[in-house]
């Protein structure tokens, strides 16, 4: 096949693993990098959790490592807490989950599942990784720079973000990351539209591919506005413009010297116009993963494949119309809120449809409870909790009270941690045999699963209660406010579960690296799956398929009546009946 872009027949180590053009290598690069960023983001959070549970008491072991102004004799300072919070959010969203869900899983699996030899633009693919990595490293380095890391939350509301230190580096690396993901999304779209194997009509694509397709559109259209907004904020910081700075500011006694005339709320609109679609970017690919695993382990087709696809498209479209539900009490016109109240309620409908399809898919199945399936099943009720808690937030009136409380934190961590992260972990167990031709250890997998699920519920349920009790988020010392004292105990519980969660990641990390080399060897199609990625050797060679596959049927031909074998691969010629 015409696939000689890596030039020489025997590529050097550099070409093969560092500056590789192979979507699979790039995918794994993304995988490891984003895993590490996840761990970093988690690490920052564990420091914060200590401060939240035991405000004012020195951080054990690590406290002394930090400079005096970050943590005077080991006790976390307000600046440091805010920096950790902002970086936790940024790292987890932009450097952790999205690169993992899209950069890693999408990159590796999309071409395989549609039967393509590679991405449409391998060089662009490589470029997007080599923008992502420096962007992320720059983000981390900002901790070491004078002034430290950004301290204005991942939402970076001006004017605070204009006067706080660290923000400039944050903006720069955001611009780099945005560029990287734009390259990626263009690549994904062209690949899915143009490079599908013969017979792979859109309606024969696995749900996972659809999820990636919708996600790519969201990234393509939602990121540029944030890029523009970030450029404006950069101008405000570097060239002293006043896009977001109104007249007559008095900052800590000093009257602000800028021209004024800007609008702080402008940023919020632009930011959320990205950030709401972004949250669906965080969850659609994981939903795709869950669908794949469920279809495979119920040994039957998904219930309502088309409904699921249409729901995803609906979610994609609607997600551009709900952004201001983050701004109900931001001071924007209250009349506007009514509009966004309605759109927000509407967008929950396709989500419910998706969840329903997943649940109904179990009906009539012959369910195999293997490790990936457990993760996929856990996703359903846990995401449901997160999703349902979105409703009182979407309801203008109740949001008056719940806005910016820990209820919000609880809401989105249920969707994003016990939803997205759980699904992504399941995906690792499911596709590990594809990546390395070996399978991960089941016993360790079970420990990892039950431990993680229990801890996640233990971390985030207390947050919902604290939210109802009115505890605000982003408080570096909750006990400084009387009305938080009654729930401070829950903070301690949450913290211990967070440390527990960290412990339960150890078996996973060990399992991951150990199985890479010593894991039990697996056949080409260990899960008896139907989708195309299993129709080529594991790990697939450069160029993937020995010969371009032809697709004869839909993605989930399991237990087809009249067939002895309970699965019917997409690429298998219809003729002979096993």
């Amino acid at each position: 096949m015409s696939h000689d872009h890596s030039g020489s027949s025997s590529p050097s180590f550099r070409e093969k693993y560092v500056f590789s053009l192979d979507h699979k290598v790039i995918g794994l690069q993304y995988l490891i990098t984003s895993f590490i960023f996840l761990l970093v983001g988690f690490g920052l959070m564990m420091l914060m959790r200590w401060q939240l549970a035991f405000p004012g008491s020195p951080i054990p072991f690590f406290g002394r490592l930090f400079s005096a102004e970050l943590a005077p004799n080991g006790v976390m300072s307000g600046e440091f807490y805010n920096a950790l919070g902002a970086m936790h959010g940024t790292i987890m969203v932009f450097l952790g989950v999205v690169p993992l869900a899209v950069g890693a899983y999408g990159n590796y699996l999309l071409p395989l599942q549609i039967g393509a030899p590679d991405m449409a633009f391998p060089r662009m693919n490589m470029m997007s990784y080599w923008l992502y990595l420096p962007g992320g490293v720059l983000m981390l380095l900002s901790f070491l720079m004078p002034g430290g890391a950004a301290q204005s939350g991942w939402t970076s509301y001006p004017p605070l973000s204009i006067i706080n230190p660290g923000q400039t580096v944050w903006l720069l690396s955001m611009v780099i990351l945005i560029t990287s993901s734009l390259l990626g999304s263009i690549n994904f779209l062209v690949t899915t539209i143009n490079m599908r194997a013969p017979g792979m009509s859109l309606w024969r694509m696995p749900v996972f591919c659809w999820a990636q397709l919708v996600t790519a559109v969201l990234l393509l259209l939602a990121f540029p506005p944030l890029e523009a907004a970030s450029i404006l904020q950069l101008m405000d910081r570097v060239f002293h413009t006043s896009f977001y700075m109104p007249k007559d500011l008095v900052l800590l006694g000093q009257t602000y010297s800028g021209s004024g005339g800007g609008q702080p709320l402008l940023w919020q609109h632009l930011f959320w116009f990205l950030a709401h679609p972004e949250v669906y970017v965080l969850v659609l690919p994981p939903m795709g993963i869950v669908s794949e695993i469920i279809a495979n382990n119920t040994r039957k087709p998904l219930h309502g494949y088309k409904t699921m696809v249409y729901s995803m498209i609906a979610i994609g479209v609607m997600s551009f119309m709900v952004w201001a539900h983050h701004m109900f009490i931001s001071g924007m016109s209250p009349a506007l809120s009514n509009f966004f109240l309605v759109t927000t309620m509407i967008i929950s409908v396709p989500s419910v449809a998706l969840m329903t399809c997943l649940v109904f898919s179990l009906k009539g199945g012959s369910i195999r409870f293997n490790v990936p399936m457990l993760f996929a099943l856990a996703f359903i009720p846990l995401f449901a909790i997160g999703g349902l808690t979105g409703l009182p937030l979407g309801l203008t009136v109740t949001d008056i009270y719940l806005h910016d409380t820990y209820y919000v934190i609880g809401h989105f961590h249920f969707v994003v941690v016990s939803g997205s992260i759980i699904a992504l972990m399941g995906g690792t167990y499911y596709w590990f045999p594809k990546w390395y031709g070996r399978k991960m250890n089941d016993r360790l997998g079970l420990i990892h699963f039950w431990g993680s699920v229990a801890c996640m519920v233990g971390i985030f349920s207390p947050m919902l209660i604290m939210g109802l009790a009115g505890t605000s988020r982003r408080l570096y010392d909750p006990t400084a406010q009387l009305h938080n004292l009654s729930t401070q105990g829950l903070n301690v519980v949450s913290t211990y579960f967070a440390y527990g969660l960290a412990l339960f990641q150890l078996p996973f990390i060990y399992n991951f690296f150990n199985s890479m080399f010593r894991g039990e060897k697996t056949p080409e199609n260990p899960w008896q799956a139907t989708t195309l990625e299993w129709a080529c050797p594991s790990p697939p060679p450069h160029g993937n398929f020995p010969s371009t596959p032809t697709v004869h049927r839909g993605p989930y031909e399991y237990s087809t009546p009249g067939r002895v074998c309970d699965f019917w691969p997409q690429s298998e010629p219809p003729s002979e009946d096993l």
Partner: protein
Amino acid sequence: MDNYGWAMPVAASSFAKSIDLGIWIIHAAMLAIFVLWGIFFVYLLVKYRARPGVLAQREEAHSRSSELTSLIPDLAVVAFEIGLIVFYALPVWSKVKMSVPDVANPLQLEIVAEQFGWSVHYPGPDGALGPRKAELVHFSNPIGLDHNDPASHDDVVMGNELRLPLGRTAVMKLYSKDVIHSLFIPEFRLKQDAVPGLEIPVWVEPTRLGKYEITCAQLCGFAHGLMRGDVFVQTQEDFDAWYQSRLATTPAPDKPTNPSEDF
């Protein structure tokens, strides 16, 4: 302290009750949905677990009916949501946020936020708030009140202390001098961002005597977590008495020619 527990604090304003009602209704519904779904979910898991010899039976793939059955739960959710929107969210929202009730002589206040505190500006008996000028802002005059103006002669400015007469509607205009803050009084279920450059009116009618808490709900800097104040809901008499005592003790601050020279 007994105002607080593991759920919403005591309800101390006229609209707090209706907000709580909504929170309880929707959580009851969420619980119902989740439990029903959960039971069904577990039932499916048990009933259709893999057993030797038993093959998966698939429903007719992609048949219209099977597509549509997955929409039934939606209808329930949609109906419920429409109900909430029409009969709850829209009316209550317009009452709480979109309008200020026109009652006879409401208490007109200004609340000016800054890093990291709240200044409450009372009009005094004349009911008129003195004008504020950015160039007059000074640590002795945090809101830049123009003391030459007759309207400000009986004004009082309090730091991090909000006193309200029981049962009297107070209309507060929110301002911020520097960054975005958010006025949050849990017992009143009152929350509103204070945005520099904007004047945002909020109102509340205290319905319960007691000492409550002002907090700041919007990240505003390193001491955001420490930005708090007290709310006292008193009888009109106590309020007036307190006000007179304040007036007596508040000296007219010296106006610096150039505020920034002190820094």
